[in-house]
Each structure stands twice: as C-alpha cells, then as structure tokens.
C-alpha cells in the first residue's frame, strides 16, 4: 500500500515516472500525490507522470488537442441532499463543477459519474443532480455508489441510469478505440468485508474483454476503489484482484474510482489507479482521523479540496493523462 505523505511542494520540480520501463520515482510520486490535494495537478502524459502547479504550464499543455484525442471528465460523490457543516451547499459546489467543465477550452466528449450521486437515494436528490448536470449538455455515464442504492437494492438507480446495463448496473462501451467498463461494487456487501463485484459480474467482465486486442486501451470505472487503500475504513474491493487478472494482457488499463473524497494515484505494472475528488465534501486521509466521516474544513478552503478529473487519451500512446483540478 502506498501512503501519501505531506511533503513541501517544490514548484520547480518536474516529477517523472517512466510507465513503460517501470522506473518509478517513488519520492516524486508521493510529492505529486500531496500536491494534488492542495491545488496542484498530476498528469500522466505519454507514459510520463508530471505535476504542475495550478494555473502554470498545464493550461497551455491541455489546449493542444488534436483530432485523434479523446477527452472526458470524471465527477464523483455529489451527495445531493447532504446538508451538514462539512458542506451546507452541495448544490452550489456541483454547479461550480459544471461551470468548470463548461469553461474547459476543449470540451470533453462525455462525463463519467463514479457514484454517490445522491446522499439518501431520494428521487428529488437524483432530480436535482440531473437538472444541474443538464447544463453541461453532455452524455453522462453513471455507476452507483452505496448512497444511491439505499432502500430498494438499486431499483430506482437502474430505472434512471442503468437502462442498458447488465445485472445491478454494469456495462461497457467503446469511444475512439478506448474500451470503457462501468462496474458496480456497492451491492450485496458481506459483514466484515469490503466492496464486492460478485461472481456474475466477474464472469461478465471476463467475457466482455475476451474479444479485445491487447493493444486496446481500457478504462474501468467504479465507485469504491479497486485497489486496497485502507481496509480498516472499507476502502477497497474484496474481489478486485480477480477482475484485474482479466485485464493483465492489456497494455494500458486506467482505473477511475471515487468514494474516498480525495485524489490518490498508484501505478502497478500496466494499471494506473486513480481516485477522484468529491464535489460535495472532504474525507480524512487514511488513518488520519478516528473514522472516515465528513471533515469540516474552513469555508474558504473547501473549494480547493473539491474538484473534477479530466482524462485525455492520445491514440498511439499507451497511458492516459489523468488530471485533477479543484473547484477553487
């Protein structure tokens, strides 16, 4: 397990990781992780992990889009309906995320929402999110968080967002040669355990990727992290190793998760794991509090700890650029 450490950011440093030669600069990587939580940016571009201070070179780098590029945005954990001191205005911060997306110089093709759309699975909460996200004018792909399937085993979620999905809401689709897989790991959780994919979904996954060429870039998105971040707080998925074993032969796998309301990144062989900011509230770093509950931060700091994730794929390159930016 990689744990993030607080290291004073060195604004002149460029942090590089050669993804293809597995020569990770561990110290640099940790710096990058620490930065991400305090308003800087981490990116993997062409297999090289780099970090930039917000508002510096990053803007110009991201403007150089070409026809063979695919850009999409991940948002997560909007928790519509949450009204506690950690953020009494989750409508305002979700709208800020939408403004951020609409202001991107090169518009993303679509949006992934990695769950906890609502706080209490109420229809009005889903309605509110749908209404706010409509302003992006983008196609949106959803997977459920545990807050979206509270009282009806996910029936309402499936009716609203999972019409073309299998089982409890899993599915796949292709865009610009990238194969996207949405997984559900918040259903049928067992006492004492972590997130669960379950036998049926694993079988479907194995079959879903069977026909793909090994050079096909894969993006997997699910709510609870598919790597073990902090099992004491349930931040992991019991059978994720099985799922990842089906993806071993692929040159590039990008795993996008939410749930923990903070950005973290880990590279393991061909797989880049990434967790996104929430648009609603902050949770403590692993083990840094008595429990994982919502953390109240000074009001003026809140938007620098919430955000969105911008993902960029250039055909012919292995790794996808994963860029976090805050709402501040």
């Amino acid at each position: 397990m990689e744990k993030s450490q607080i290291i004073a950011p060195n604004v002149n440093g460029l942090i590089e990781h050669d993804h293809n030669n597995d020569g990770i600069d561990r110290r640099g990587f940790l710096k990058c992780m620490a930065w991400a939580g305090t308003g800087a940016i981490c990116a993997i571009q062409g297999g090289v992990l780099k970090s930039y201070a917000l508002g510096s070179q990053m803007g110009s780098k991201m403007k150089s889009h070409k026809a063979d590029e695919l850009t999409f945005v991940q948002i997560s954990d909007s928790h519509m309906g949450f009204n506690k001191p950690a953020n009494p205005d989750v409508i305002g911060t979700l709208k800020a995320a939408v403004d951020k997306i609409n202001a991107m110089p090169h518009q993303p093709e679509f949006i992934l929402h990695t769950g906890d759309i609502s706080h209490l699975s109420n229809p009005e909460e889903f309605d509110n999110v749908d209404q706010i996200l409509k302003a992006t004018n983008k196609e949106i792909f959803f997977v459920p968080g545990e807050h979206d399937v509270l009282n009806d085993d996910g029936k309402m979620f499936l009716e609203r967002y999972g019409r073309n999905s299998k089982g409890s809401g899993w599915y796949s689709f292709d865009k610009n040669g990238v194969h996207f897989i949405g997984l559900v790991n918040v259903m049928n959780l067992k006492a004492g355990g972590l997130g669960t994919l379950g036998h049926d979904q694993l079988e479907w996954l194995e079959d879903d990727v069977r026909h793909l060429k090994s050079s096909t870039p894969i993006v997997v998105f699910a709510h609870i992290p598919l790597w073990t971040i902090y099992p004491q707080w349930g931040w992991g998925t019991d059978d994720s190793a099985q799922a990842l074993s089906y993806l071993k032969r692929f040159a590039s796998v990008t795993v996008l998760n939410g749930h923990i309301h903070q950005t973290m990144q880990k590279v393991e062989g061909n797989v880049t794991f990434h967790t996104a900011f929430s648009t609603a509230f902050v949770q403590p770093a692993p083990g840094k509090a008595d429990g994982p509950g919502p953390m109240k931060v000074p009001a003026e700091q809140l938007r620098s700890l919430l955000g969105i994730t911008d993902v960029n794929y250039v055909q012919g390159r292995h790794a996808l650029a994963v860029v976090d930016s805050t709402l501040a």
Partner: protein
Amino acid sequence: MKRTILFSGVPVMLLLAVSALVLQPTRATAGENSSTEVRVDNFTFGPETLTVAVNSTVTWVNKDDIPHVIASNDGLFKSKALDTDQSFSYTFTKPGTYPYYCSIHPKMVGKIVVQ
C-alpha cells in the same frame, strides 16, 4: 445520566410522555442494569456487543453525518437507511447471539446477545 438531563425542567405532562418512552425498553431487562440502546457513531457500534434479556427491544440511533443501515447477518432484520439522529428498533424474543453489520459500510459489525 442522559435521563437526568432529559427530566430537568420538563413540564409534567411531557415528562410523563418522555419517561414512558424512555423507560419502556428498560423495563424489559428487569433486574439487569443493561442499556438497550446502541449508538452508531464515527462508523462504529457502541457497545459493539450488547447483552439483553429476552423480549428486549434494542434501539440503534445514528449519530453520524452519514446514513447507516442496520442489518442482521442472517437477514432476520434490516432497517431502512438511517439518516442523522434517526433510529431503528427490533425486539428479540428468543435467546441467542445475533451478529449484525451496516450493509453499506460492512466493516462496521456488532452483535446482540439475548439471554
């Protein structure tokens, strides 16, 4: 201790109503000094193991800013999602050990021992 705070300065009518509510589950554990409330706080059940007499009603109260769902491991009982300060009660009519967990945060586990 909690009851003392509740009773101080409360008008008589309300006092009677409140004491009826508070005392009823306590009466079920006649002769034992055990509480029948489980506090759900900071993603833990307190106490994690609660021992009660047969026919006791156990009430779980959620003190977190995050909802929880109380579910017995074998499906005997399951609450709706409990938001902050909401509660769920279940009456145990047979002796035994009843392990339960939060079905959306399954690392949260506890048990009720009914004697």
